[in-house]
């Protein structure tokens, strides 16, 4: 089967064509090696980086932005959001600080400094 995809790795947004009838799948239309990896992943096990916000318990009306340290399987995005929504942090926090570990194979880390 051939699938047409738009690469989401960078803003260039290459139109990819992925042939999954052969192993390994063949990607055409990509401008860089990242596009090839994306094309194959998207057709086998699509992943996404999830970005979200987490409540800062000891600050009024304050949220801190967080993200998955690595992309997670697309089908777990909402489960990952549920984990994040269940959790709060206490300030101060710094960029890169782990706030949850082992969430669908990666960590949830802070992306904004709160003093």
């Amino acid at each position, binding site marked *: 089967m051939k699938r047409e*995809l*738009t*690469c*989401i*790795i*960078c*803003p260039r*947004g290459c*139109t990819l064509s992925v042939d999954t009838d052969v192993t390994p799948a063949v990607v055409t239309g990509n401008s860089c090696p990242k596009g090839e990896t994306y094309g194959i992943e998207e057709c086998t096990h699509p992943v*996404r*980086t*999830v*970005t*979200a*916000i987490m*409540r800062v318990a000891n600050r009024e*009306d*304050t*949220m801190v*932005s967080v*993200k998955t340290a690595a992309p997670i399987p*697309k089908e777990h*995005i*909402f489960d990952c*959001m549920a984990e994040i929504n269940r959790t709060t942090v206490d300030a101060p926090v710094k*960029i890169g600080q782990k706030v949850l570990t082992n969430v669908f194979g990666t960590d949830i880390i802070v*992306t*904004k*400094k709160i003093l």
Partner: protein
Amino acid sequence: MTEHDIVVIGGGPAGMAAAVAAFDNGVTDVVILDRDEHLGGILNQCIHNGFGLHKLGRELTGPEYAAVYAEKVAERGIRVYDKTMVTAVSKDRIVTAQNKDGMLEIKAKAVILAMGCRERPRGALSIPGARPAGVYSAGTAQKLVNCMGYAVGKKVVILGSGDIGLIMARRMSLQGAKVEAVCEIMPYSGGLTRNIVQCLEDFGIPLYLSTTVAEIHGKKRVEGVTIAQVDENRRVIESTKRYIPCDTLLLSCGLIPENELTSSAGIAMSGITSGALVDEYRQTETAGIFACGNVLQVHDLVDYVSDEAELAGIGAARFVKGTLGTFETIETKPENGVRYVLPQRVSLGRNEDVSLFLRVVKPFGKVRFTVKSGDTVLANAVRLKAAPGEMEKLTVRAEKMQNITEPITVCLEEVQ
């Protein structure tokens, strides 16, 4: 009145990168005036990722990208006046501002305008209907959700498919809301294709093109909207009207450079970009005043904002040191299929490469861009596709510009 070599107005991505570049080019007396409490501008509410791929070679979220530059500002000891609102700039480079200490007047040797842009509000869109709560510009909703943790709505319709609208469609979905539709009045989206894929298709959100919101319903709170298709003149086709129940309408209908200071100062502006007219170092037609970032032209990518701000920072530093030079300039002109070209004029005799930034008038397939002066071809480039939502960059080599006398034109032609 105090004096500084360079005053940067705005502490977002453009202002920070400009201040850092000015400092690194030998002018250490640089100050940033910003109305917010923290540096970073709009990046602080853009918690999604995708920033920095071009400029920093890694993928960051907005707050992380802002932190990289805020750190550069801090390392250099560049003074930041926060919670400071600039109220006037004059052509002789006196900057007037207000903060809790009262009024500040700063005499600058060079000024860099980096005030960014704001969203087109409902009032500018003339949407008929009631005026209930629940109508937000997409960026306002983004701030309420991402910085303050409010749930803005549960059933959402988004008008406009610019990048902020698309990003908010995903954000609202992730936060548990149901996004019923994104409506775009134009026959194509103004956003990046990758955002349509990862923000709409990933979440099964329909994008209706050539469709607008014809009426907003509800007394106290939005109860629903009537959407309808539009004809080629963007007039509502009555027979296509359809009611969608919802409690929230987000507007993502374009960004307007925030140029009140610029136009009040009497600095020459472009009617197309709604920003100042500039040369290759982003100097406006008023000597010593530079502009960069979204106040100059609305960008798609912060990476290009940083690049542009560095040019302005270098230009301002050289102006202060007296090494920028004054040269004869020629105009750049958009032709056939190109909406605008920036910078609007280019100095002759610098012997440096110049990058031209432009947007096309409508979506195209494969195109060839040609940069010419009279009959002389200065540069050309082929792109597999071109769209109004994606800014193009074409570089003209220094040696090509040595003997030109006629305006630089940029046109495109479709190729097979």
